[in-house]
């Protein structure tokens, strides 16, 4: 497991250079794109787009410069991006499938280590409708939301620590009935943090690791954390024998809390988190793969939904003007919430195995559809340079 990679775009303070800002707007007839190749480079950005055409087409983009560059097709004015190519090496030609409607466009070139350049504006005539576009989100845009999210995580970790102490104290005084009762609230405090695909690195494995991938499975010495304690509590392990994994869990939760101020969350991670938390839920909770005996996967799913909502909330200001599916996504969040809530009975939850076919299908379907609505957030909010 690892932290899903995000772009290493460097926030640049380099000046926006309107390379050819005074070039005239070219009118062009609507005809299939027949241009041999459009250049991207510091000195020839956008040159070669001689016959801009409406409709679905594939642009051919060649980096004629000396450094690796990204290329965007942007709307003029406004700067909404209709299509992009990342990391085009010098001398390389790549194709960019795109749908353009009537309007004015330009190529924006982004050499890895240099200023952005906008090529000459071109006008596309005709009545075709363009493909969807969005104004890029920048690193700067993401700093605020990321800080907000980190504050949420920091608050959640305090709750996590307090509840973990309750759990471990119960094990220490050999009250396994109380430990079983304390396990779920503590675990859910962790699951609400929205840790997916090893967000917290080694702490993630230590606190919430699964036996899968360990040579000796549930008996592996590296199997640790909440699920290790869960396995013991629900498999008749003695309090004496559970003490060590419980103490280890507490130590790791303290470690996470102490480490948190040093861990600057990569702003590009946040948009990924928006769908990855529930991807993780679908893969490990709704399959009941993560369950080690407590049968609380649906409680975990509900906590994961809370974490997802948090990620979405902090990004909402950026999404409002960019994501047309936002209200449908909200409806899907509520739909999943309602379906999960229905499986909560006081302090206990229906296990996934205990779900009837229709309930199980409803939850799986609603989560799946929610994921389809969450996934665009990662694409829309992927940090991009605009200056």
């Amino acid at each position, binding site marked *: 497991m*690892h932290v899903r990679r995000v772009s290493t775009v460097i926030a640049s303070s380099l000046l926006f250079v309107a390379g050819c800002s005074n070039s005239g707007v070219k009118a062009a007839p609507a005809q299939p794109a027949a241009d041999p190749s459009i250049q991207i480079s510091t000195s020839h950005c956008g040159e070669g787009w001689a016959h801009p055409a409406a409709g679905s087409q594939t642009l051919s983009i060649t980096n004629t410069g000396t450094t690796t560059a990204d290329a965007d097709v942007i709307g003029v004015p406004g700067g909404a991006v209709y299509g992009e190519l990342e*990391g085009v*090496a010098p001398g390389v030609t790549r194709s960019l499938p795109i749908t353009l409607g009537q309007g004015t466009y330009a190529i924006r070139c982004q050499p890895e280590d240099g200023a952005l350049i906008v090529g000459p504006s071109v006008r596309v005539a005709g009545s075709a409708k363009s493909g969807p576009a969005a104004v890029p989100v920048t690193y700067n845009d993401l700093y605020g939301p990321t800080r907000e999210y980190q504050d949420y995580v920091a608050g959640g970790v305090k709750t996590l620590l307090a509840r973990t102490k309750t759990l471990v104290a119960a094990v220490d005084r050999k009250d396994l009935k109380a430990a079983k009762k304390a396990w779920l609230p503590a675990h859910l405090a962790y699951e609400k943090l929205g840790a997916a695909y090893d967000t917290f690195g080694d702490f993630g494995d230590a606190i919430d690791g699964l036996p899968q*991938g360990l040579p000796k499975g549930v008996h592996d010495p590296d199997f640790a954390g909440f699920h290790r304690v869960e396995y013991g509590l629900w498999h008749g392990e003695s309090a004496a024998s559970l003490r060590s994994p419980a103490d280890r869990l507490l130590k790791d939760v303290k470690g996470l809390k102490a480490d948190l101020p040093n861990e600057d969350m990569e702003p590009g991670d946040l948009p990924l988190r928006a769908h990855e938390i529930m991807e993780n839920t679908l893969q490990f909770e709704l399959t009941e793969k993560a369950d080690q005996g407590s049968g609380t996967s649906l409680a975990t799913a509900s906590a994961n939904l809370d974490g997802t909502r948090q990620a979405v909330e902090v990004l909402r200001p950026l999404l409002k003007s960019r994501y047309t599916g936002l209200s449908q996504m909200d409806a899907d969040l509520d739909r999943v919430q309602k379906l999960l809530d229905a499986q909560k009975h006081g302090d206990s939850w229906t296990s996934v195995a205990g779900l009837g076919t229709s309930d199980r299908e409803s939850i799986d379907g609603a*989560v*799946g559809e929610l*994921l389809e609505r969450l996934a665009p957030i990662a694409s829309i909010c992927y940090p991009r340079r605009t200056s």
Partner: protein
Amino acid sequence: MSGYDRRMFLRGALATGIAGSVAGVAAGKAVAETSTTPEAGAPPIPPFHGPHQAGILAPARRRTIVAAFDVMADGRDDLADLLQTLTDRARALTSGGIPEQVGITAPSSDSGILGPDIPGGDLMLTVGVGASLFDDRYGLASRKPSRLTRMPTFPNDDLDPAWCHGDLSLQLEADDDDTLLHALRDIAKHTRGGMQVRWRMNGFSNPPRPTGTQRNLLGFKDGIANPDATKAAEMDRRVWASGKAPEPAWTAGGSYLVVRLIRMLVEFWDRVGLDEQEKMFGRAKDTGAPLDGAHEQDAPQYQNDPEGLVIPLDSHIRRANPRTPQTDDSRILRRGFNYDRGMDSVGNLDVGLIFTCYQQDLQRQFEATQKRLADEPLVDYISPFGGGYFFALPGVQDSSRSFGGFLKV
């Protein structure tokens, strides 16, 4: 006492089943019968007899069955009988011909699903042995291929014991499913008392879309940078066991086989942006070209991209094959197929890759590559759940020999 009867192998008249097991017949038939091959111009399947098993270097067919068996043979003589039976069936099934007629003495010797005259030259079959065959059951410890071990659990694996390992491996390849099923059904019929299928996966290869190397179910061309199987010297260096110490001499002409059953989490993958997908692989999805190239066969120029700005340092192709002199001897010969086994419990497609590769040395090649790939970004979208390590036996040279040759030396 033995709960197992060697006659269960149905040797003798019945077992002969399909007549016409001479290599020449098989070769002749191959040319005549492959006209139905869907992919025009697919090369004929090589004959069964030869220094190497045919299914290692020959181009992959459209369909496969990969299976592992647990052997229950009672002692080494029974094991020898089992391997003789397996050889006889392999020879007969690859050659084709009219099945043995048994009159009123027994039910038909053949299932009949390929018609009354079994087409020859439509089937490839590759047999391997697992490390467990060399445990104390048959007294074979001293004959074990020196590098053969049980497949370990790698980080990010989620191995299901029911889908791992086995005493014997069998890969069948053909262009049609009925050919494969006919063969598996026939082999199982003749070997029931001696071995049982431990796990089995059906697979398929994809036609080029639109050209070149086939795409995997993540939509990327896969297997582009394979070593050239037509170069004998290269195969000697990378694929074939030499039979020189520390290897037992009998291993010459065989090859180590790794099978990995790898689920692909395609729904999750489909919710990942194209740029991110391409960076994970290091190739363009449309053309298969490395991100610094234009065509799928272009070699990536890592020396011009030391920081990984174009092809990220942790991309699949860069980790798998860094193309340095130091890593050159870890290259493997891949022979992958896709699988599709329905849906999982949450309504997602249960599909993925039957990764198979051949090499001279498991540790030097597959494991070194696997170590470089540990924690690559792609691991979140795949889940290895089965497979095993095997040693694909040397070829059966002629009609007087069998897969059991290593028992006699």
